[in-house]
């Protein structure tokens, strides 16, 4: 099983999603993986890039792929938007996208198309990897009933990002089960959280966020797991507005799946990462871990 990867943290994992980056790096290290940060990486273009400047977005993503080609390793990309954009750029190079102009290619197209871009969920959910994920568990997380939330960009569109079922992905549920927590079956795992509309059309995004939070609670979850910094920001920081919309209080902690793994492994810095959340996870975490 391959354990050395190039690593694209992306802008969010160095800012609002810092705890995703830190917990992911720690968990991968704990499991014996090495992540080598991509030299001089740049923004993937995010949603705004392809929204109004498709040629710029493609060139930005391709530059990262060219940097990755030079490492001769598969590239791990945790942020769902970065992952999606880099995969889509690879597809654009293979398929001859009209937004692709020759000047956007710092190295020949074949070199770009050869770069393998993977998501941490993909790396950790193989049968072999899951056995190791399970073997390292020290803290029992059985009290966590987790709704795994995948959002949009990890599974759509399938021609660009297929590593799991499009409508019912299970990679995160399998990891949640492997670390001893209970995965919850629910209907909102691939519904949109509004993405950056949370900032530019807050009312509209809160509508979507409220449905997801209520859906998780109705399915009996006491926690939500995510794998995307924007999904986390939206579900974690908009619970007050969502409660107002639903006319009842919703309060459900939102974890990066790597934070739950860190709790299962009793990694020393987990508490520090959880402190960054706006919806405090400590009442739940303390209640479950102290029961031991």
């Amino acid at each position, binding site marked *: 099983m391959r354990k050395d990867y190039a690593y694209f943290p992306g802008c969010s994992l160095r800012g609002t999603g810092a705890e995703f980056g830190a917990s992911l790096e720690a968990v991968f290290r704990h499991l014996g993986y090495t992540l080598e940060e991509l030299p*001089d990486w740049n923004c993937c273009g995010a949603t705004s890039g392809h*929204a*109004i400047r*498709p040629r710029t977005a493609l060139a*930005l993503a391709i530059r990262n792929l060219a940097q990755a080609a030079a490492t001769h390793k598969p590239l791990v990309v945790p942020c769902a938007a970065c992952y999606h954009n880099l995969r889509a750029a690879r597809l654009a190079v293979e398929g001859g996208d009209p*937004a692709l102009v020759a000047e*956007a290619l710092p190295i020949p197209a074949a070199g770009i198309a050869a770069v393998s871009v993977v998501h941490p969920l993909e790396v950790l959910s193989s049968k072999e990897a899951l056995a190791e994920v399970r073997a390292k568990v020290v803290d029992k997380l059985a009290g966590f009933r987790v709704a795994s939330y995948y959002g949009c960009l990890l599974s*759509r569109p399938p021609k660009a990002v297929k590593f799991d079922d499009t409508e019912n992905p299970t990679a995160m549920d399998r990891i949640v089960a492997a670390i001893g927590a209970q995965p919850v079956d629910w209907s909102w795992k691939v519904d949109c959280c509004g993405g950056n509309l949370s900032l*530019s059309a807050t009312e509209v995004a809160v509508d979507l966020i409220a449905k997801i939070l209520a859906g998780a609670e109705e399915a009996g979850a006491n926690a939500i797991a995510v794998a995307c910094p924007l999904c986390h920001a939206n579900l974690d920081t908009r619970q007050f507005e969502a409660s107002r919309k639903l006319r009842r209080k919703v309060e459900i902690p939102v974890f990066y799946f790597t934070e739950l793994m860190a709790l299962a492994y009793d990694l020393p810095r987990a508490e520090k990462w959880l402190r960054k959340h*706006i919806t405090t996870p400590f009442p739940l975490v303390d209640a479950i871990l102290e029961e031991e």
Partner: protein
Amino acid sequence: MARFADEIKRISGVDVATCFQCRKCTSGCPLADHMDAAPALMIRRILYDRREAALSSKTIWLCASCYTCSARCPNDIDFARVADALRTLAVREGRKAAVPKIAVFHKAFLDDVRRRGRVHEATLMPIFKLKSLDLTSDVELGMAMFFKGKLPLIPHGVKDKKAVKKAFELEDKGPGEKP
């Protein structure tokens, strides 16, 4: 094929002519409630050369690029990419966006990428608030994020500034339709 549909195909690579109006895109669209024209209607507008109606819609701005429509279309029409093309055209033509705040966000975001090659949220957020003339919302949230260390003050940029500059120039003076 309609001229407008040709134009959209040249930008996005997506051929909307195979749409048979099954409306799967619209049934699954999480933003359809908030749009002024459903995705399926937008495709009709393109096929009927109703350029003005398409480019002045709120729909192109409210599309969140969730790709639900793209994943489910039986004819493989990637409507999220079509929305990208429509938005891009609206911006290139200097049109007033039907949902101005969303357009302001996209521009502020890309200005930030242009500056350093990476986004620095602690710079982007105040600029976006200023440019959208909305200084009161989310102030408390911003402060909470700052004190929780989610908004580090020191920005990190890309060393290879030339590459970033070039990525932007490709759009500014790129081939084909002029921005």
